[in-house]
């Protein structure tokens, strides 16, 4: 090596690193010893800070990686599976979609607007770095119950953050999901999904190749925001010191990102970059080491060339800053003038901060950080060691000691002679308050927007990519209530519901991405939840034929010592082969017959009714027969697809899945949306609110056709009622009235339970 990393003077980058510094950076003594082993000496300050962020839980997946390999990731349509910035899936016609979901939980807990906004910015960069034009966002939000003022403040700020960034950057937010439960009060979750569309030949990877090529930093200047965000914030628990961690939250600038998107997409479609990588968690430390490692090359980085927002930043700060809206591109020297011209047009700064070099004589590609060209080396390490040599933990796993006892608790029954109107009204939520703050129409693709159908439906097109008749269905789902009592079956059921949601818009599932939000992995019960959830997700994805093409794991979601309930979030993308007519909405017409498709409902265990109305958190979750569920999804997709052609069959007037909240909530949602009531009958009282297995409710004028189709597919079908009138009435098998509510009461409850709690005065419209 060309001059040993030095230690001299008062320069913090050259000073001797005080003993124990690694602990303040979130590294254990064993992990520190590992760094010394990799380097064969003590690390410099710059090196230590880089290992600290790269070996954090957030970047290294050190607690989860060993288990994630269980997930099925293969399929003929899969172009790129997990491990890249985004999964990439073939959709025919020479096109592909890139998709990913990521959490921004901890920043959002401290500063909800900026936390959520930068979450949107980060996921967008993961998509356009692949060469894909981002065309859709979805958000999965989890906050405390809305009787709590802080939870209202957090939700308001989070929604404003998603809106403020997504609307401004010009990518529509077309769906999502909201859960309120006490466990998220101190640790809300913000998961953001993004999907982009690209021509297959424009796919670009994050690899640095070609010795002598330039390493170019694009976008924002580097500042002191987000220093150590991944290690300080995302990889430890909260314990009431939120305000002190505010400097670790990044600040969003959607206008910068918009210009960066346009500049990068132009550079990528013109073939002007060799490789490109976004800067997210761990900033330059991550982007430089990953691109060098993927290309198998060495890289020289000149810190003095990094444009700064503030004077006197140390090398440690520059390498670990998480300043937003930056990209790292590898460019041939011949192309640089053109690259700079494109960037200037979009008012994007482009600075050469280093060069790609041949691997060292020993065959190892090293990252070399200097304070100026030819200057002193502040850090030097094998590029791959920051990712590949990160610790891997097989943390202790233990099922909860009281698991058997809790599962033995008999599920609650419903009073067969009682009225359940109030329980139903308390469970109704109209998420329009959220999605009306999001631009969900941009790009002229939105055929079914949020709230209209069980999945959002888009034309498969983007600026510069003409529509050829296909459609895309997207659904984002989670159910911590199910996963709390059985993480394995609950996660499988969550996948099942998500696949059914896209089927309800006529789509076959193409791929799934997941965000696994769990508590402290040092708690053996949390590791048990995580491994069970991965197992359940694997079983369901295998049975339903859906590959997992990407994921994110967010651990240490806990506050004041209490872990959150296991919260795996999934997003499924499905393809509609022919989208000439919009798929039936959530709705029915007066006189329609209501047909329920799917296996009979199980118990109330894990249902929203059991949790929110009865306060019951034990019991055994009713399992989902995945083979029967696959038949259901195929049947529903086929029936709905027949309505999406240029000459719709006209058999289905509406379709809605029955899961969260059970049949009563599903009926109420359709009645309210249709402005038309219904009378229905349940086989037993518990069917009102039982949630599993997921089923589908069809509104039709031709029930015989539906029953025949169901019989052909081996799917159970049952006529449950008829649409019409101004009330929703549901009776039990003995004729007793269980629910009877006027439409107006349903509408009032829908608004009161969300908008009514968040707007000072309900708006007039």
């Amino acid at each position, binding site marked *: 090596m060309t001059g040993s990393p030095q230690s001299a003077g008062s320069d913090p980058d050259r000073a001797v690193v005080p003993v124990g510094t690694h602990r303040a950076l979130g590294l254990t003594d064993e992990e520190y010893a590992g760094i010394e082993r990799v380097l064969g000496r003590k690390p410099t300050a710059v090196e230590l800070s880089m290992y600290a962020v790269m070996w954090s839980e957030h970047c290294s997946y050190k607690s989860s990686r060993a288990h994630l390999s269980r997930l099925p990731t293969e399929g003929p349509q899969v172009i790129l599976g997990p491990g890249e910035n985004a999964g990439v899936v073939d959709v025919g016609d020479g096109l592909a979609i890139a998709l990913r979901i990521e959490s921004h939980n901890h920043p959002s807990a401290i500063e909800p607007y900026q936390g959520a906004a930068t979450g949107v910015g980060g996921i967008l960069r993961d998509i356009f770095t692949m060469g894909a034009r981002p065309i859709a966002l979805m958000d999965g939000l989890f906050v405390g119950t809305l009787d709590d003022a802080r939870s209202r403040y957090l939700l308001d700020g989070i929604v404003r953050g998603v809106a403020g960034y997504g609307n401004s950057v*010009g990518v529509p937010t077309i769906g999502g999901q909201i859960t309120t439960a006490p466990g998220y009060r101190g640790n809300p979750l913000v998961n953001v999904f993004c999907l982009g569309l690209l021509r297959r030949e424009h796919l670009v990877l994050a690899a640095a190749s070609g010795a002598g090529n330039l390493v170019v930093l694009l976008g924002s200047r580097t500042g002191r925001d987000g220093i150590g965000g991944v290690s300080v914030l995302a990889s430890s628990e909260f314990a009431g010191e939120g305000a002190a961690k505010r400097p670790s939250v990044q600040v969003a*600038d959607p206008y910068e990102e918009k210009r960066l998107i346009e500049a990068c997409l132009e550079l990528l479609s013109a073939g002007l970059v060799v490789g490109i990588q976004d800067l997210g968690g761990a900033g330059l430390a991550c982007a430089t080491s990953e691109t060098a490692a993927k290309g198998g090359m060495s890289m020289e980085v000149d810190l003095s060339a990094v444009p700064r927002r503030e004077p006197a930043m140390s090398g440690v700060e520059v390498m670990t800053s998480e300043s937003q809206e930056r990209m790292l591109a590898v460019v041939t020297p011949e192309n640089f003038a053109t690259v700079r011209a494109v960037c200037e*047009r979009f008012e994007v700064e482009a600075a050469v901060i280093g060069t790609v070099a041949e691997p060292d004589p020993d065959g190892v590609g090293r990252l070399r950080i200097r304070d100026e060209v030819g200057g002193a080396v502040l850090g030097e390490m094998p590029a791959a060691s920051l990712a590949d040599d990160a610790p891997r933990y097989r943390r202790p796993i233990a099922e909860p000691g009281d698991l058997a006892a809790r599962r033995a608790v008999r599920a609650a029954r419903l009073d067969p002679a009682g009225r359940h109107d109030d329980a139903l009204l308390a469970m109704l939520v109209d998420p329009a308050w959220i999605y009306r703050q999001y631009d969900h129409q941009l790009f*002229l693709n939105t*055929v079914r927007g949020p709230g209209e159908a069980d999945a959002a439906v888009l034309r498969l097109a983007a600026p510069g990519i003409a529509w050829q008749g296909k459609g895309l269905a997207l659904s984002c789902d989670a159910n911590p209530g199910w996963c709390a009592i059985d993480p394995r079956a609950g996660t499988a059921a969550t996948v099942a519901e998500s696949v059914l949601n896209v089927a309800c818009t006529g789509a076959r599932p193409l791929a799934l991405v997941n965000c696994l939000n769990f508590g402290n992995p040092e708690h053996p019960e949390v590791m048990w939840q995580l491994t069970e959830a991965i197992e359940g997700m694997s079983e369901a994805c295998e049975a339903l034929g859906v590959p997992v093409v990407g994921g994110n794991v967010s651990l240490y979601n806990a506050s004041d010592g209490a872990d959150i309930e296991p919260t795996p979030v999934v997003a499924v993308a499905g393809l509609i082969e022919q989208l000439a007519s919009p798929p039936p909405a959530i709705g029915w017409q007066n006189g329609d017959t209501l047909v329920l498709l799917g296996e009979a409902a199980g118990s109330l265990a894990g249902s929203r009714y059991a949790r929110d109305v009865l306060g019951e958190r034990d019991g055994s979750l009713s399992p989902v027969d995945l083979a029967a569920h696959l038949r259901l999804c195929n049947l529903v997709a086929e029936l709905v697809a027949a309505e999406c052609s240029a000459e719709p069959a006209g058999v289905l007037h509406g379709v809605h899945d029955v899961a969260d909240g059970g049949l009563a909530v599903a009926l109420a949602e359709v009645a309210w949306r249709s402005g038309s009531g219904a009378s229905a009958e349940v086989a037993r009282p518990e069917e009102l609110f039982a949630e599993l297995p997921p089923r589908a409710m069809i509104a039709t004028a031709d029930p015989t056709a539906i029953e025949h189709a169901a019989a052909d597919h081996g799917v159970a079908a049952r006529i449950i009622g008829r649409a019409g009138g101004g009330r929703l009435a549901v009776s039990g098998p003995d004729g007793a009235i269980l629910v009877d509510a006027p439409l107006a009461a349903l509408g009032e409850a829908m608004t009161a339970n969300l908008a009514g709690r968040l707007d000072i005065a309900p708006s*007039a419209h």
Partner: protein
Amino acid sequence: MTHETTVGVLCFPGSNCEHDVVAALEGLGAPARIVWHSDSDLSGFGGLVVPGGFAHGDYLRPGAIARFSPAMDALRDFAERGGPVLGICNGFQVLTEAGLLPGALMRNAGMRFICTTVECEVASSSSVLTAAVPAGTVLRLPVNHYEGNYTCSAGDLAELEQNGQVVLRYRDNPNGSTGDIAGIANRTGNVVGLMPHPERASSALLGSADGLPLLQSFVDAIARGGGASQASRVAS
């Protein structure tokens, strides 16, 4: 004498509806092309659209920076010669900031961003956007804005009403605008600004095709050589 029929769609850094406007116009058979804001030569166009989005990030105030772009000087000349100009959403904000239309757009009454579809009524056919649509026609049009709450002085309002310059009104006002105003024209009817997005209502598959008659009026005005049906009223 021949004239240009291509529509120029101005694009500022931060604009985002430019592709949608081009697609909707092309769907009507009208050639359209995106023009970068630094371009000061707009001589090749028969009509101009300032599309929606967040020009210059809406920093300072929507439209406050965009009005200084070189293309805006050329647009002003074009408008003064009677050329058809349409500002949609952020484009409406830009046109008011540039002084081409009276009044201003404040934050929505509910202090929240609103994205939904609303019913609007055509209030006047005296503009390049509404010439082919009879007054009283009800259209379902998407709105998508944070600052869509139109306001102006009492004197300006009286003048707008008196001259038939209010071209579009909300039936159920989503943002608190004065007089339920959704869109206005200048005195000569060749410059129109509106908050709803006609280009987003360009296909039944997307939920509404009600924006097409408006865009068709605009295209027709260009085909006639600009100036709208009121071209004779364009002084000098």
